[in-house]
């Protein structure tokens, strides 16, 4: 069971308190009517699904209820960073290098 840090509550808690929300930083276009069909389908369905370090959304569903983001290595399940929703995506390559991934 993963151990997850909520950047709002500022505590580490067991995975059972959280709900994973899939890949992070996939912004809904601010004017959807201006997007092409292909772009909209990408927004709806296309995810990187990578083996390695990526950013994903979590919600502290049985805690504060807030959404936040985390950088996780999908191979080892190690978390490299937790940060609040709205903060920019960290440099994943730098985080991976720092963690020796």
């Amino acid at each position, binding site marked *: *069971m993963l151990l997850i840090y909520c950047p709002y509550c500022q505590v580490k808690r067991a995975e059972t308190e959280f709900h994973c929300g899939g890949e992070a930083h996939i912004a809904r276009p601010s004017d959807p*009517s201006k997007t092409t069909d292909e772009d909209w389908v990408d927004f709806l369905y296309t995810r990187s699904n990578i083996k390695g370090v990526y950013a994903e959304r979590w919600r502290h569903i049985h805690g504060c209820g807030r959404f936040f983001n985390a950088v996780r290595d999908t191979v080892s399940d190690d978390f490299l960073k937790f940060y609040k929703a709205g903060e920019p995506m960290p440099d994943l390559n730098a985080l991976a290098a720092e963690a020796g991934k």
Partner: protein
Amino acid sequence: MSQPFRTEKGGRIDRAEQLTFTFDGEELHGHKGDTLASALLANGIHLVGRSFKYHRPRGIVTAGSEEPNALVGIYRNGDQTPNLRATQVELYQDLQAISQNRFPSLGFDVGAVNDLLSPLFPAGFYYKTFMWPKSFWDRVYEPIIRSAAGLGRPPKNPDHDYYGNQYAHCDVLVVGSGPAGLAATLAAAETGARVILCDEQAEFGGSLLSVASASIDGKDPSIWVSETIQKLSAMANVTLLPRTTAFGYFAHNFIALAERVTEHLKDPDPKLPRERLWQVRAREVVIAAGAIERPMAFPENDRPGVMLAEAGRTYLNRYGVKVGHKVLVATACDTAWQAAFDLADHGVEVVAIADIRETPPDNLISIAKARGIRVEAGCVVTGTLGRKRVKAALLGRLMTSGQVASGGQVECDALLMSAGWTPTVSLYSQSRGKVVWDAEKGAYVPGKPVQKERSTGASKGLYGLQATLEDGYAAGEEAARAATGKTATFTRATASGGEAGNGGTLGALPHDRDASRVKAFVDYQNDVTAKDVKLAVREGMHSIEHIKRYTTTGMATDQGRLSNMNALQIASGSLERPMPEVGLTTFRQPYTPTTFGLFAGVARGDFFDPVRKTPSHDWVVGNGGVFEDVSQWKRAWYFPKTGEDMHAAVARECKTVRESVGLFDASTLGKIEVVGPDAAEFLERMYTNPWKKLAPGRCRYGLLLNDAGFITDDGVIGRLAEDRFHVTTTTGGAPSVFATMEDYLQTEWPDLDVWITSTTEQYAVAAVQGPKAREVIAPFIEGVDLSAEALPHMSVKEATFCGVPCRLFRISFTGELGFEINVPRRHGRMLWETLAAEIEKHGGTPYGTESMHVLRAEKGYIIVGQDTDGTVTPHDAGMSWAIGKKKFDFVGKRGLERPDLIAENRKQFVGLLTKDPKVKLEEGAQITTAETPATGTPAEGHVTSSYYSPALDRTIALAVVKNGHALEGQTLYVPMPDGSIPVEVTGTVFYDKEGARLNV
């Protein structure tokens, strides 16, 4: 009373306390401190089971949890638990054990004919034999496999035990309490770190409990163990867990432990659970799981009486049991010699030590000579004799050519063997670590750590008592420092004796027998021989993963801890590739078999899933209502009167609602309070409908899509004030709608000033529906004018009901005049009982979910999840009217413009009337254009809802059909096994198409 194989003295058993037990009904005796295995051996019983495939007689091989053969059933409290390892079952007074996998008895087993037929059961025989003919599967193969497969019989009754659960956090978790584990625990505990020590055995000490020829700080090692445990018990920062198996190492240093709490007790405290699951989050882990001895793969190495040398030593020194009176020791390494010496010192005749090495160490030879033990170097066992117990062994002399020459026969009633040691890397492997091949040790050892753990002592291939202690201290110190940053100085014990041995071998041993006729077992539990592994390679299995599955070697409950290394070496030889290239299969959780009860814990029966009840629940029970489960809710389904079946009750309820009045519990509907200056803007973006112009006091039906454009939920939304909405959702959709709203609000539109709160549990809701609804509620409502002019259809007002504040909605899911009264939940029972008594005066009736479904279907109102399936758009559902055409954006707006969603041939929501008004369609039935379509014809759609309609006195149905909106008036077919049913496509509203009954 006699225990002919009990030693005169020694061992850790309590000789003063004799215990009586039975094995297959035979009354036997043992002592407190025995395991079932040691007690059986004390009585001279080696034969304890029949093997899985060939039903060969099998004896006790080990003294630990890796035991492959001695699986027994234990009777307790009128039921039997199968497949317990006799080596782990602690003896208590009146214990009842039975052997398994034999018929009619252990001594005479008809299944043993499989052994004679063994040429028919080669590797992969399941795959080969049962390919053909197909019809034989059901009638022949499956019944035979089912009756022959498995070992013990499953218990017949529900589990009468209960199971505990404990979460724990610690700085350092130490797994295993041998010399390395105890040293690590001490070192970590001295720093003040919070330490948990667990060991699968009943007593702490591991191998130290079986040593007779070493000392620690000048004392017997078992004394040092007692003193150490005493010291640790007194430390507040240490938790000691005996009988506790660390069976799973999961991500982020989460380790699951299974503690056996009461099974070793005759009359346990009934308040105690049988087992307790510990879910431990450890900052650091020390794996001190030790090593296990490897069997030698020589012909007939499975004869009862053949066991591992260290097991023989353990039974002698720890349990005071001689495994035989005339013992042959066959070995490839030094450690087994000590077993021979210890046995000789207890007066057992050691008939010979046969070491496959040409030149065993001189010092061992001289110790043997001093005890008068015959030593045979360069000597292998090439077979064993005896039926249910070994009575002699064949020896063979290894020639320089690699051939084996007969070396005669020696009589023995037990044969101790050792092919060397295999470090227990299971937990390391579970932690996702990759083991590495150590050529010098001839073993796989832990590689670099992936999680916060380190292995110590024998589990990393380090042997020798002093070295192990030192390594354990270092591991404990390092773990504590990593976890807490603290260190401590303390006195360390020093050991003498217990030196590390050398030697060891892998794979099948050479022999001079007819290779086609003998079996040398590699995996005892799954009956896999050396030949099977070679055959698998010959038949094209070149990956160890394929060899494992084809032969089933390593697939037994020990996951190949005993067998893997021998099997790998044989595969490596056959493949002509070095061991490390052949690879090792991964060890997975659980380390040893774990009960389902442990995982279920208290989540059984009523606690399996929460049951949610509405405030009318008790009233419904008392008035004969029948319930149905809707997600976790218990909802009243229908209210049969005496003599009524469901059909009659529902018909009466529906008729009564349409003619006078009905009462329905709508408390389960999801409710969300949306509040804030941007509340209307938020709903504008979430729902398809426009909200900004909705006046306070009015309601609107809301349709919720996902961004793909498909319907996901619906419900009526009332505006209570400029900045406050009361949103309702479907019963099942409440949590997901709330989560979706939070998601958009927090992550897409954080600029909106809105708060949303789930209020599902805050309100009890009674729906009063029917022409007399207004009269029914009028006496109890204050603060609002109920007239059609003041409170038209789709209105909401705050009022009081019997003086209790309520939200009064004028809405309808039946097509009749209707009100829904929301009161604080604590007043729900009063609300329901008041109205139930009142409707009775008006000839009304309570009605349940079934009538609710019929009434709404007569009006063509959809049920999301029944009439929609996640691929239905508002256009498909005939609900384009619900879309705010002028809106800039809403969730799903862009999705609806996707080419596939505006294409022709989409399935659309329609009504269906069977040509024969008595025929009711089956929900889910397929719809075709042809009356008798050819096989393979795709369906045009399917029936989503189907009922008998009392208002129309005929059946009605709703369906989704390709281009259905254009097909009104046409005939389609619903092909069924007993004939095709013709249906006419209609609109979806069957009753009161103009809606006149709503506006009264």
